[in-house]
């Protein structure tokens, strides 16, 4: 895997993955085997459990906040001290039986509810972006690698352009100039538009290797159509790379979403988002550090778990393909 010349890293940058050098070198590593290996790895299991909790939080957000008693947009003026400029009552940012993670300074919104709803936003955006970049990356990578010639030229130039482009600056500019509209959808589109070349580049290279393998020629010689060659012969052999690349890109997209929301161009208030919470906590960090610590911890642990899990999956697949 060659790394292109020096360029400025962006929030979007997906880690350059050292995949098994020879795609399609062995039999497929079954999904069951991947899961089995992960279940026997303590660190992976821990990450899996944490991510499961976050996902469940996101899915059942309305139910959970009903149980905890406070919605994400309900103001609890009783929980803050208006004489002190809105600092929450009690120590640790107002953590109590009433407000499990404390409250937001100044307006007293329940932090637990906002974390739960924020998980929804982060995960929906990150997963949608992953699916979209996955589709774009695989399709364009396959096209460029299989057809070569002018198709490859055209796709590769677009990829070079997108990867060399200062994506973050462009995203900030475009998101702040566009009318609010449907922000989450817009975020997904913008993140994916800049994210797919990183996957496509890997897929393109591996497709080129695979297209020259004799089994593709043999399939062609037995009467297979190009479509069948691409989707039946080549694509399945890319499964490992696609799984690894996409898993490792999810934490990047969560970070990007949080970053853009932190900068004020992500999801618009009052929709809760972890990045936005961190952003508004900055001016309070000396009087109410918990307001920063809680969303910060969730963001950190989510990104960490996804990265560790992605790495583990990669090593299982690599080991599987090497045998």
């Amino acid at each position, binding site marked *: 895997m060659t790394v292109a010349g020096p360029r400025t890293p962006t929030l979007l940058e997906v880690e350059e993955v050292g995949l098994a050098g020879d795609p399609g070198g062995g039999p497929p590593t079954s999904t069951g085997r991947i899961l089995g290996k992960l279940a026997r790895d303590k660190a992976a299991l821990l990450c899996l459990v944490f991510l499961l909790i976050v996902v469940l939080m996101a899915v059942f957000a309305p139910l959970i906040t009903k149980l905890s008693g406070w919605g994400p947009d309900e103001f609890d003026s009783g929980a803050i001290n208006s004489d002190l400029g809105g600092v929450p009552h009690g120590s640790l940012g107002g953590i109590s039986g009433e407000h499990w993670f404390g409250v937001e300074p100044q307006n007293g919104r329940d932090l637990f509810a906002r974390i739960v709803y924020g998980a929804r936003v982060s995960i929906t955006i990150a997963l949608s972006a992953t699916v979209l970049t996955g589709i774009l990356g695989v399709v364009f990578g396959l096209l460029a690698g299989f057809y070569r010639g002018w198709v490859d030229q055209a796709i590769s130039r677009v990829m070079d352009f997108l990867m060399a482009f200062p994506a973050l600056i462009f995203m900030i500019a475009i998101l702040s100039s566009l009318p609010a509209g449907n922000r989450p959808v817009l975020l997904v589109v913008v993140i994916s538009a800049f994210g797919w070349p990183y996957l496509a580049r890997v897929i393109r290279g591996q497709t080129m290797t695979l297209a020259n393998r*004799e*089994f593709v020629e043999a399939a062609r010689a037995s009467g297979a159509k190009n479509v069948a060659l691409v989707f039946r012969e080549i694509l399945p052999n890319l499964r490992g790379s696609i799984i690894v690349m996409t898993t490792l890109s999810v934490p990047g997209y969560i970070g990007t979403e949080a970053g853009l929301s932190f900068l004020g161009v992500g999801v618009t208030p009052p929709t809760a988002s972890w990045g936005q919470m961190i952003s508004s906590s900055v001016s309070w960090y000396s009087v109410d550090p918990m307001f920063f610590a809680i969303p910060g911890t969730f963001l950190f642990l989510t990104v960490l778990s996804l990265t560790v899990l992605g790495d583990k999956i990669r090593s299982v697949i690599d080991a599987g393909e090497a045998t």
Partner: protein
Amino acid sequence: MTDELFVVEDLTVTLPTSRGPVDVVKDVSFTVGRDDTLGIVGESGSGKSMTALAVLGLLPPGARTSGSVRLDGRELLGQSEGELRSVRGNAISMVFQDPLSSLNPYYTVGLQIEEGYRAHRGGSKRAARQVAIEAMERVRIPDAARRVDDYPHQFSGGQRQRIMIAMALCCSPSLLIADEPTTALDVTVQAQILELLAELQTQTGTGLIFITHDLAVISSIARRVLVMCAGDPVEYGTAEQVFSDPRHEYTRTLLDAVPRIDDEVML
């Protein structure tokens, strides 16, 4: 002439290169009958594979061809891609040099044989599976009924080449092109594969084009021989003619390079 199964006349293949178009096959003519074997010999780069690929319309992009290639009187050269697809793997099959990479590592061998069969013959999955098992038995894979569900890496090189042959023969083609099918295998396995090919040929009456640069192999399997040198057909005739009385200097050089052949011809 017309009763011949497969007729190639003045086949010329021109490939685009950075130094302009190059004729990699020049005016090649030969015929293959039913149950007949033609051997094509020549050193590396002499255009043997290009001749085979031209027949199936599998040349690299930009290649041009002229001449005539007829199977059962039907012209193949210049046919549409769709037309050629229905011929490939059906009326004409091909076996490639490297059995280790000719099978897709992602699928079981049974599935790959079934797919090839159903692409041309259709039918149910179950029927195709039966065909696959029978094809594997025919090429003498032991315990075929169980081994259809194994992946390519679970077979030896020789077995994989047998499976490739099984796949090539499952649609009962009238012509089989084997492009150096034994080069990647060791000598004893080579002999078994050759024996198998000869045996299957007598059973099915398939015409066979056998490409190799090993003259010993040719002398044991082919009835007629085409010798190629840098794209030119330098010698064409029956095996006895070519080996006992080579008319061309190049053939003599090839023969001299293989001392074993002389012993055999002496007999």
